[in-house]
């Protein structure tokens, strides 16, 4: 049991928690922006895969991890265009469109990967780390947290920025109004369509970043169906967090711990079947839903296309 608290074990565990939390955190923040504006994006699983694939390809071809993340964000925006045109502009059934985007995203990325990269079995390698002077020398935490890649810090900054923007600025107010009562936004002179459009594109960028973080930093490679349901977990986290970025961060962290604890225990010699490790986050999610079923709240206008004058 003394292994449990050894320095290497804790270091590996903390680093692994961060690696598992970040993709989900970014995707959940993206989904939160969309949901706050009244657009439920069930295609997030597909959009994440598109972001993951484009991030992987850009990093592999340019050799730059930063450009890879940018590519992931752009991929996410492109993936969300279908949602923008068909749901926000034309008001079509978002559940059907969401499922369609998921299926197309899964299919196209898997086919493209197998066609172009499967034989090479390409790995992106280690991301260059950015030790924070002073803090990086702290034992355990220093190595696990303060020697992360610079991308980690920038992403964290983005997440906090979204939290601030949603809560404290006019843009955030308009976005939340578009989800709570679109007619009031319309009456106040704002454009529901434009607000929702911006929110959907920004949401796509964050979901794409989440996918790219997964393929570029966490796994450093891509395979078909890489996300394995992560997008759906992001939807659950968004529902439970009620639009508060702080809660999104906490719930994502709980998920990260649930995912990271299994392999970490394996490292120190506990034999846990891989299937249990894969199931664990979903079991945590369903237990959370059972316990907090009553407090999962979504914006009233979620999923309802806005038609001026309609009741």
């Amino acid at each position, binding site marked *: 049991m003394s292994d449990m608290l050894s320095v290497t074990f804790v270091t590996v565990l903390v680093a692994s928690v961060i690696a598992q939390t970040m993709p989900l955190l970014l995707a959940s923040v993206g989904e939160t922006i969309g949901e706050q504006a009244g657009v439920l994006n*069930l295609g997030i699983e*597909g959009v994440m895969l598109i972001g993951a694939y484009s991030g992987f390809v850009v990093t592999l071809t340019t050799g730059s991890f930063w450009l890879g993340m940018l590519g992931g964000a752009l991929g996410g925006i492109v993936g969300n265009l*279908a949602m923008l045109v*068909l749901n926000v502009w*034309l008001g*079509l*059934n978002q*559940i*059907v*469109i969401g*499922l*369609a*985007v*998921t*299926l*197309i995203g*899964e*299919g*196209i990325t*898997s*086919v*493209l990967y*197998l*066609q172009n990269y499967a034989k090479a079995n390409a790995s992106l390698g280690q991301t260059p780390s950015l030790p924070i002077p002073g803090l990086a020398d702290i034992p355990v935490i220093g190595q696990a947290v303060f020697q992360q890649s610079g991308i980690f810090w920038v992403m964290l900054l983005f997440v906090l920025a979204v939290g601030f923007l949603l809560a404290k600025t006019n843009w955030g107010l308009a976005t939340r109004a578009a989800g709570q009562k679109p007619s009031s936004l319309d009456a106040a002179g704002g454009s529901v369509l434009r607000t929702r459009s911006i929110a959907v594109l920004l949401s796509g960028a964050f979901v794409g970043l989440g996918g790219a973080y997964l393929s570029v930093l966490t796994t450093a490679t891509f395979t*078909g169906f890489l996300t394995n*349901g992560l997008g*759906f*977990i992001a*939807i*659950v986290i968004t*529902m439970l967090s009620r639009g508060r970025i702080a809660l999104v961060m906490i719930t994502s962290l709980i998920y990260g711990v649930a995912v990271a604890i299994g392999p970490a225990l394996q490292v120190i010699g506990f034999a846990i*079947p891989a*299937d*249990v490790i*894969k*199931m664990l986050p*979903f*079991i945590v*999610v*369903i237990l959370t*839903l*059972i316990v907090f*079923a*009553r407090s*999962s709240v*979504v914006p009233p206008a979620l999923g309802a296309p806005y038609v001026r004058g309609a009741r």
Partner: protein
Amino acid sequence: MSIDTEPELKPAAQRPEPMGTEQSRGRAIVDGLVRSILPVLLALIVAGFIMLAMGSSPLAFFQGVWTYGLSGGNWQRSLVLMAPLVIIAVGLIVAFRGQLWNLGYNGQYLLGAVVASGVGPYLFAVMPAWLATLIIFVGAILVGAVWSLIPAILKARYGTNEIITSLVMSFIGVGIANLLIKGPFKDPSTPQPQTAVIPDDQLLPYIPGTQIHVGFIIAIVLAIVAQFVLTRTSFGLRMDVFGASPKAARHVGINSTWMVILLFAISSGLIAFAGSIDVLGQYSYQRANWDPHYGDAIMPFVFLARLSPLAAIPLVAFYAILATGGTLAAQQAGLNVDFLLVIVGLILLFMTITEYVGERRRLGQSYLPAGLRRTLVRPFQRDGRGSL
């Protein structure tokens, strides 16, 4: 039909139907056909262009679908695939008619399959095949029904979104099925993680003269029965009322809590039944990490069939041919089986777009002024009626 004598301002949609109901019903059927087939055609065309862009030959692909899915004796393989697909379609229709999104089909299917592949070898060893088969079917349906209780109760009691809960339960179900296959149900005689093979003479018998097991007949009969129950009985009417408005349903005395749990149980039980019939009819054993994702593929066709079990049969047949032939054809065209997912997703997209265009036309909410619109729409209608 004189176009010019009609009052100028009268919108086309409010025009009284001049011909008897027979002809308007005929037009409704033609309309329905167009709306069901058009999205599929558009999806196939766009998929062809995507194939071109990826450097594969769409012609080779579609030719391969024909060769491996229909010609020779291959149509029989397509019909075998139809058996589980039709049952899953009926299961989805039951849930969707009640406006319940049961998206946990992958887990439900695999749990039903694992009942057959895991318990089957033990049962067939000690009792006659017909009795073992019956027990397996009932067991699979019960497992599916019980598995759906968590999403159903959460939905009925707290209104928790069943899309999320059923999906999450699906991932857990897939995990449990894999654990069972690697653990208690593993065949000790092979190093592979798979269940023991059920001997051929214990499997479902073939329809005489073919290589199609009787599960196909069970599936078709089930669809016919479902069609009858859904459209001709009071239970079907209750379901439709509940689906249209749970509030209205409460006013006419339908217990909505019970309704949610019952519909979820039937839906999930049927999908699990499809899994068990697939194992007993076709596969005879189950490998770990095997997941055919049937439900994902079938869903668009259920919508295209307007949630009617009978109308779903030809559409499912189409997909069965596409999937049977497409698996080999995709490899030949330098693609991968997963490309079928892209085609299915495109069908879903074009379905919503066709629906949108259709609604616009019928409700008279066109962006074009009424007079201009009529000149556009009329010739199309007349041609359509004449040639079809």
